[in-house]
């Protein structure tokens, strides 16, 4: 059904609440439109407060974490270390300063970022407190779980082979 016909049958309000129509512009019009949009955005960005910018950064981190731990397949691009490093970068902090603020040694922080140590249980809690509850501890725990799941799947055969020698008995029924 054409736009004109819909507009004849329904109010603009109803249409706007249900649809976004395709609008074609010529190359010249598109270029001018993009320029105007860039100018309007520039003006808005100049007025943006630090709190507003930080909110955007934290929301971005949170959504990436959600996408990671909710995904069916593990994504090796991400990990607890990746998100921790990103959190510190988004706050524009030095690692030493951040380690101090959450009461850990800089060496431990480095080990956590580089995935050379499993995060102790208190770390997600301290991260939640540090973020003023913006990133709940549950998010960090779920990321850690997802990391484990990914590692299990990646090394499935090797891990089973390694443990096989310790299992000397078992049941015969399989469900």
């Amino acid at each position, binding site marked *: *059904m054409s*736009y004109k016909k819909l*507009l004849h049958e*329904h109010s*603009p*309000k*109803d*249409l*706007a*609440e*249900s*649809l*976004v*129509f*395709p*609008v074609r*512009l010529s190359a010249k*019009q598109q270029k*001018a*439109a*993009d*320029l*105007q*949009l*860039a*100018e*309007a*955005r520039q003006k*808005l*960005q100049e007025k*943006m407060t630090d709190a*507003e*910018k*930080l*909110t*955007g*950064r934290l*929301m*971005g*981190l949170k*959504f*990436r974490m959600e*996408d990671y731990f909710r995904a069916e397949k593990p994504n090796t691009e991400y990990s607890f270390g990746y998100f921790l490093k990103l959190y510190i970068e*988004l706050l524009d902090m030095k690692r030493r300063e951040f380690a101090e603020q959450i009461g850990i040694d800089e060496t431990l922080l480095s080990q956590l970022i580089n995935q050379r140590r499993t995060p102790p249980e208190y770390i997600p809690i301290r991260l939640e407190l540090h973020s003023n509850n913006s990133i709940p501890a549950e998010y960090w725990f779920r990321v850690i779980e997802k990391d484990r799941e990914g590692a299990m799947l990646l090394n499935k055969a090797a891990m089973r082979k390694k443990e096989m020698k310790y299992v000397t008995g078992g049941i015969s029924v399989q469900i």
Partner: protein
Amino acid sequence: MAIIEVATGRKLTASISPLEDIDFKQITKKRYFFDWKKEKGAGELFKLTLQGESEILGLLALKDFPTEFRMQIHLLCVSRENYSKGKKYDGIAGSLIAFAARTAIGKYFEDACISLLPKTELRAHYKSKYGMMDGGPQLFLEGARLHAIIKKYLP
């Protein structure tokens, strides 16, 4: 995200996921307003369904402009039964717009922006309903307003 069942006022859980080839079997122009097959490959396509159900309640076509940290809502629709008066569910279009905002923030953090190019007659309504701002012929959401639409539709 929550969709409201108009008859009962109940909040129902919905999910948005990428459109798959098999979905095109149920997507007709009559029910979903546009020729969605034409949009294949032109951008990212998403569907909104109630959790655990396969019936598509809304569709979204997003185009990414990475150099501008911007995602454009190229096309959006609710299914015919959820359109205008007598609709079964409310909040479908808002949830799809909020999903676009969420996707942009997940990619571009504080620089994220979503935009759309409106039909002239609908311009004022996108602004009042979703808080969109003027950017020449285009409308956009960025900063606090972008965050607000996510909080409203994807609490």
